[in-house]
């Protein structure tokens, strides 16, 4: 662990794969910018990899004042032994006060390893981060300007705010899509600090033999309309209804964690705290009761239409439009109405239609 360092920077781990930055580090930089400005300290990005120097500029354009760049063939593939060791050395040297990681496959491997080695705290899958004070419930001692790490807990029935008052750096992971990405500013200037990498590859305990990645099957973040189903849909076959409604609206298909766990729809489609966070123009959810983890991933949608048989389902608490009824009846009616509406429009504009 490091001592509390009020002048310490805010750090974002900038994950890259094969020389490409994903959205998460850029989203974290825009949140990090906010935190750093509140604390009046610089924001830095830490990037490790091979042949990645060109990415520094993008990180600066997205808000970093400084980039710590570790560029070496030995860092071509991620593994905790090399990445965590380097990051711990950097933390010990520069004493940042906050370190943020994406809650990705790599981030969820790396961040706990770093936290364990630094003997500091780590909060997983935060849905919000703020700067605020903490009063110790026993001693009443107040510690100012801590990173408040906010996440749903215990099956989503509570929202917990976690702080690390003493053992720093304050560390948290955040899922993709949770923070809004800011627009790149090409006029921004920043420093690049080259990090010396002294790792003998033969001493590393893991060799990567093969690595295959496929693009996501669905682009939920970019969808204007999302139709999502939950456990209430009842079966994978019946999920056809969700697909049909999405198709006719030109939207993407989403699912609650329960629907994914039950095998109704693949994990790529999961909306919520442990899936993707979305903000479409219209979010239609059917058979989703609305656990807080799910709501955390969709409640900022511009319009929410909830269809649920239970009038007391929590999902109605965030909905703009609601239909209390059986989705097996409501969705076919929606499809029918949309279809007839489309034909009507075509008829008015004089287009031939015979469907």
């Amino acid at each position: 662990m490091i001592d509390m360092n009020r002048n310490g920077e805010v750090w974002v781990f900038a994950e890259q794969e094969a020389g490409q930055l994903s959205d998460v580090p850029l989203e974290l930089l825009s949140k990090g910018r906010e935190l750093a400005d509140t604390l009046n300290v610089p924001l830095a990005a830490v990037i490790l990899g091979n042949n990645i120097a060109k990415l520094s500029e993008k990180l600066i354009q997205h808000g970093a004042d400084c980039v710590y760049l570790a560029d070496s063939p030995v860092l071509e593939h991620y593994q905790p032994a090399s990445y965590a060791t380097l990051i711990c050395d950097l933390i010990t040297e520069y004493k940042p006060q906050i370190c943020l990681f994406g809650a990705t496959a790599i981030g969820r491997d790396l961040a706990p390893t770093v936290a364990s080695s630094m003997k500091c705290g780590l909060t997983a899958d935060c849905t919000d981060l703020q700067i605020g004070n903490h009063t110790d419930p026993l001693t009443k001692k107040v510690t100012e300007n801590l990173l408040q790490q906010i996440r749903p807990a215990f099956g989503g029935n509570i929202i917990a705010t976690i702080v690390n008052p003493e053992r720093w750096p304050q560390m948290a992971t955040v899922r993709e899509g949770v923070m809004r990405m800011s627009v790149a500013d090409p006029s921004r200037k920043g420093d690049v600090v080259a990090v010396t990498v002294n790792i003998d590859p033969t001493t590393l305990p893991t060799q990567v033999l093969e690595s295959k990645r496929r693009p996501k099957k669905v682009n939920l973040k970019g969808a204007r309309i999302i139709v999502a189903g939950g456990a209430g849909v009842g079966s994978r076959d019946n999920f056809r209804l969700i697909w049909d409604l999405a198709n006719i609206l030109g939207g993407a298909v989403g699912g609650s964690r329960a629907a994914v766990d039950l095998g109704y729809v693949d994990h790529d489609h999961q909306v919520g705290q442990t899936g993707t966070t979305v903000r479409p123009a219209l979010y239609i959810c059917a058979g989703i009761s609305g656990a807080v983890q799910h709501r955390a991933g969709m409640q900022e949608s511009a319009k929410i239409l909830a269809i649920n048989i239970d009038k007391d389902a929590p999902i109605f608490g965030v909905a703009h439009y609601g239909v209390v009824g059986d989705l097996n009846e409501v969705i076919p009616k929606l499809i029918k109405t949309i279809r007839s509406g489309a034909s009507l429009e075509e008829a008015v504009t004089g287009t031939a239609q015979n469907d």
Partner: protein
Amino acid sequence: MGYNSIVCVKQVPDTKQITGQAMKSDGTVNRAALPAIFNPEDLNALESALEARDRHGGTVTVLTMGLPSACDVLRDALCRGADHAVLVTDRRCAASDTLATSYILSCAVRKLNADVVFCGRQAIDGDTAQVGPQLAEKLGYTLVTYLEDFEFEGRTVRVRRNIGNGYEVVRSQLPALFTVVESANKPRPQALRKALKFKKALSPLEVNKIVTEQLPDADDNTKRSEAANRCQALAKQGLLITQWDLDDLEADLTWCGVTGSPTKVNRIQSIVLAGGDYKEFPPTDAGINQLIYELVEDHTIG
């Protein structure tokens, strides 16, 4: 020449069963209202360890830190084929975050000695997925997360990792710690013969409790010697669950429980939804027509 495995398991509240009844009026969670279950991915971890023993020999020890009632998952693991079961229970473990938990587990793993440690990727009550990686760091074992398939090759292991949007094949040196994902395997059910035997397995704490119930009027010395005799008899049949406290582990108390946990709860808010503040449409043809009309009207669709 087999591999000795330790499987870290956790008894968790079945968070899928959370309903309104599980919340108390003050907004806190009524844990007693939730069934306690074997954390699902820990069953996959156990299955992987049993497969390793089937192929190469060696032993499988299940380890848990928790309340005395966590013996339920240890018994379940014994009925499915684990060789030994260890319960770490101590009031001073209470309020441990993932860092303190991984420290306490590391003390127990060191005492047991293992070539490989299998953990479930994450537990359903917290979903943090942090204890596995932190335990590997504390032990200095090679960390291999998201294991889907594996094959030992002498003192190395070849692992296929499920990284969500694809996979990776790695070769890692032992000793290693794996976190196992649900897609790795299908956990075997309890074996009938083993189930008949191991459902009788007990921890010393449970033996004490039974003796106190059965001999309510006996003095403490009688109870103590009766409990000791019963424990001895259970041990002979391989039915005594090993039970350790933090003293047995020679754990440094500054790294355990509240003092060992850097994360502190600043605030807990229960989820109270205002509700009712939406525009309702009846599930009739007319209602749905009206709904679609409004969505088209404000350019949300169309």
